[in-house]
Each structure stands twice: as C-alpha cells, then as structure tokens.
C-alpha cells in the first residue's frame, strides 16, 4: 500500500530553497510602498505559489492520481464564491444613500 514507490524522491531541498527565498522576497516586497492593490496582488501571487509548491511536492499531489487532486481542489470555488459575494454585498452597501 506504499504509494511513495514508483517515483524517485522529489526535489525536497530545492522546493525548500524556493519557499525560503519567496518568504524573504515577500517580506521585502511588502515594504516597498507600492500602491496597495499591487502589493496585495503580488503578495497573494507569491503566497499562492508557495502554497502550490507545498501541495504539489510535500503533499505529493504531483504524484497522485488526477482524480485525487481534482477532489482536493473542490472547496476552492466555494471559498471564492462566499468571499466574493459577501464582499460585494457589504462593500457596495453604504449607510443609506
């Protein structure tokens, strides 16, 4: 029932390097004083990149059957729907007119 077998050990240390570097970059980037929107986008992009690396290599999604990582993605749209709709709701509702 071992599942690791069948693929040679993933580049764990390289991934670690990338994660570490990205973390440093994030912190530096956060204080560049760019417009908020660009900061947010850049930081989220880097964070998602790191998250994806962890999922693909450390959680082995890259070596799992397709159907498993399809299942793993299931909640993402729900999360987006919830946050997007509620933000739109609260954000576009001022106090009266």
């Amino acid at each position: 029932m071992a599942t690791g077998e069948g693929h040679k050990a993933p580049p764990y240390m390289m991934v670690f390097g990338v994660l570490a570097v990205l973390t440093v970059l994030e912190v530096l980037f956060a204080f560049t004083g760019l417009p908020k929107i660009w900061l947010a986008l850049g930081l989220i992009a880097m964070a998602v990149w790191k998250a994806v690396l962890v999922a693909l290599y450390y959680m082995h999604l890259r070596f799992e059957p397709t159907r498993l990582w399809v299942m793993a993605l299931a909640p993402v749209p729900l999360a987006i729907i919830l946050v997007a709709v509620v933000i739109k709701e609260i954000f576009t509702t001022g106090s009266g007119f």
Partner: protein
Amino acid sequence: MTPTTADRAPMAGMKVYNLKLGMWVFLLSEVMFFTGLIGAYIILRFAHPEAFAEPGVVLNVPLTAFNTFVLICSSVTMVKAFAAIEQGDQQGLQKWLLATILLGAFFVGVQIVEYTILTGEGFVPMAESYHAIARGAAEGSAVIGGPLYGATFYTMTGFHGAHVSIGVLCLCFTWWRARKGAYTAGSLGGVEIMGLYWHFVDLVWILLFTIVYLI
C-alpha cells in the same frame, strides 16, 4: 477489534488507500474551516478598513517571518522522515520526526511569546479593552486599528496555533510508534497522513502570514 479495511479496494475508487483518502477528505473540510475564518477577516477588513493597520505597525513582522521559516523547515524535516521510511530507514524516520516535533514546538513557543508582547501593547481580542499602540510607541500614544483587528487576528492565528499544537501531539504519538518499529517501507500510512496534515498546517500558515501580516 475491527480489522481495518485499509488494505483492499475492490473498485478503482480514488486509487489511494483508505487512510490517505480519509485524511484528504478531512483536509477538505479543514480548508472550509479556514475559509470561514480567513474569509470573515477579509470581509470585515473590506467593510471596515479603518479598524485595521498597515503591515508592521502593530504586528512584529521580522519575528513572524522567522517563525514562518521555522515552520517551513519543519515541513522539510517531515518529508525527510517520510523519505527515510520509504527507504525502510527506521533510524532516519525517528531522527527526522523528532526534529519536526522540536521545530513545531518551537513555532508554538514563539507564537506564545508574540502573543504576550502584543497583549502587553494593548493588542487584545476583547473589544472593550482594545487599545493597541504602534510597536515601540510610548504608553498612551494613539490607538491603532479597532477591536475587529484584535478579534480576527487572535482567532485566525490562534486556531492555526491550535492545529500546530495538535499536530505536535500527533507527531509525538507517531514518533513513539516509530520507536517501536511500527512503520516499514511497506506500511507507512501513518507517517504519510501525519505528513499530509503537517504540510497542510504549514500551507495554511503560508497564506495566513501573507494575508494577516504582510497585506
């Protein structure tokens, strides 16, 4: 003593053994749980920008960045442990598990220190007694942000911390079993799902760190 059915899967199913599937399914619900907490934070921040502060003003970014690094390291030691047992290396497994435990415990320790400092600066979850001041600012200087800031911060990081602590306990259990030689290259389900959980907690922190501390 019901025999575990983890070793037979008549239909193709998910093409992974039950334990791993079960852990993944559980992680899906964890995703939704943190969606609720982080989502609430994002929503509230959009609704009341004035109740929150710019990065680094109240929160100690360097300290937490270091802590993030610690957690990433613990992920590496965890995969090392898994890689070790894949090769049937019992010693390696125990060694790396122990390292992971220590790093995880250290992360929680740093978080506790951080909490103590922050509460000292009046950055607390209780709405009525919230009076956070800028880091290093003199007592009684201008209050920064609002009650929602403290509430969301402690709820999110607190629940993540709880997940790490639980993870550490489970790791200790895994380590104890590893010492008794419970895992082999042929049966490492326990180690693998432990790893899945641990890396998930790491993954959540990567997002939390960015969203809460840097944006």
